[in-house]
């Protein structure tokens, strides 16, 4: 289990290296999908099943789908690939940066614990993070309503930004 957590944490860092050094937005979106999936694995390994499910559904299934459509609109039809020299230099630079930071900040491999710790041993109906999120509805009710109001306002912001200031109705780009 600790090996699995090690692989997942490594995948997290490598996936974001791919996102940061992307040659084209298609590859950045693919890297984000990989990072979100691996992050869900990390959360499940430390016992947060509900938060992992929320990440999968809302982030991957909601937001990244919208980003994929936007990449289909905005990016060019013939993107440059991973083999181009500036991209490889950026990938190498980010990997060296992460390795240097790990060498400076981390300890030896035998001094640290890589595995997550699931504190609820066994199968229960009400796990820890589910109980915590339910506080959003009881004590944090005002924050929930504020968040809903902010989402409604964001809808109006988006409509206003894409309106074109009187130069036309909503039209195809």
């Amino acid at each position, binding site marked *: 289990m600790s090996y699995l957590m090690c692989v997942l944490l490594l995948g997290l860092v490598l996936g974001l290296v791919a*996102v940061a050094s992307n040659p084209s937005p298609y590859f950045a979106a693919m890297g984000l999908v990989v990072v979100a999936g691996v992050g869900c694995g990390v959360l499940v390994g430390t016992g*947060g099943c509900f938060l992992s499910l929320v990440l999968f559904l809302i982030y991957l299934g*909601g*937001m990244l789908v919208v980003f994929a459509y936007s990449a289909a609109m905005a990016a060019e039809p013939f993107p440059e690939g991973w083999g181009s020299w500036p991209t490889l230099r950026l990938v190498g630079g980010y990997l060296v940066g992460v390795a240097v930071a790990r060498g400076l900040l981390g300890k030896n491999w035998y001094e640290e614990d890589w595995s997550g710790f699931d504190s609820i041993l066994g199968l229960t109906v009400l796990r820890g993070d589910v109980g915590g999120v339910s*506080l959003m509805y009881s004590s944090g009710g005002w924050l929930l309503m504020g*968040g809903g109001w902010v989402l409604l306002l964001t809808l109006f912001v*988006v409509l206003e930004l894409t309106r074109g200031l009187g130069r036309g109705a909503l039209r195809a780009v």
Partner: protein
Amino acid sequence: MTPTHFAFSSAFMLGLAGLAFHRTHFLSALLCLEGLMLSLFIALSLWTLQFNTMNSASLPMILLAFSACEAGAGLALLVATTRTHSNSRLQSLNLLQC
């Protein structure tokens, strides 16, 4: 620094570097911003899970809601840029150049 802490901290720093050194496409910068939000979500969730403070488990949910707002606003800006400049490359945003 524990490996988990190092992993999401370096993920955040990598996303920040990708956002700061954006090269050609506006959408690449927006996707690095989404990577920042994702690393923050994982960080907050791991905080509640590893320290057993389940009261703060609603924090990553609220972060996700506001990050969705921000992603929508960023994509609306991308659409507006594509309309006025006919592409979304960062070289074409040169009105403020000297």
